[in-house]
């Protein structure tokens, strides 16, 4: 599964994207797995209320299923306009 990061999530994790081998059922499960990987993931995911998630480029939420999903994106609240 392709996992991509933007803005300060990208900076804290230290890379813009990576391939992740996972059997996580939901976004929350995937986050739990990532947090155990390394300290920088723990820091990036420490406050989920400050994060947003998109599945295959559609805004979603942490309870959503990852079934069939090819690309997961994590980023802070958006600040366009």
């Amino acid at each position, binding site marked *: 599964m392709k996992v*991509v990061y*933007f*803005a*300060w999530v990208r900076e804290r994790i230290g890379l813009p994207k990576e391939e992740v081998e996972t059997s996580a059922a939901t976004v929350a499960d995937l986050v739990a797995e990532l947090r155990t990987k390394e300290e920088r993931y723990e820091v990036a995911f420490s406050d989920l209320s400050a994060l947003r998630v*998109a599945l295959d*480029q*559609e*805004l979603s939420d942490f309870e959503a299923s990852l079934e069939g999903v090819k690309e997961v*994106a994590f*980023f*802070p*609240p*958006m*600040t*366009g*306009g």
Partner: protein
Amino acid sequence: MRILVQEAPFDVGAEAKAFSEGLSASGAAVTFTGIVRDNAEGNLVEMLIEHYPGMTEKALTKIATEATERWDLEDVLVIHRYGSMKPSDMIMMVATASRHRVAAFEAAEFLMDFLKSRAPFWKQEITKDSASWVASKEEDEDALKRW
């Protein structure tokens, strides 16, 4: 409907003119232009805008399509830049056209409210000695509730 996501500057005058001259059934056209404003300290050197290629175009198209479903619009334009900008540079613009002014105004405000918090752009302010991500505002999230 025209959606442009681009790094290059755009000409707000040429876009406004082309948009309004392309209309045949509208009595009202509204444009909104977003401009890089200096920060509170008055020392902004650069505004960097990061985006999510692919998702950005999808999100803007979705927001613009919803506007055309909610209001009777003859045309909608959305332009949003990413990359490096200086104070006073134009970041983005939207334009809406309808038979009546209320629809054109409401649709433009709707586009802006959703574009602020639902399109994947992130602003970073660069000064001589710092780089800080612009925080989202609670009032921007609250603004979505009226629609």
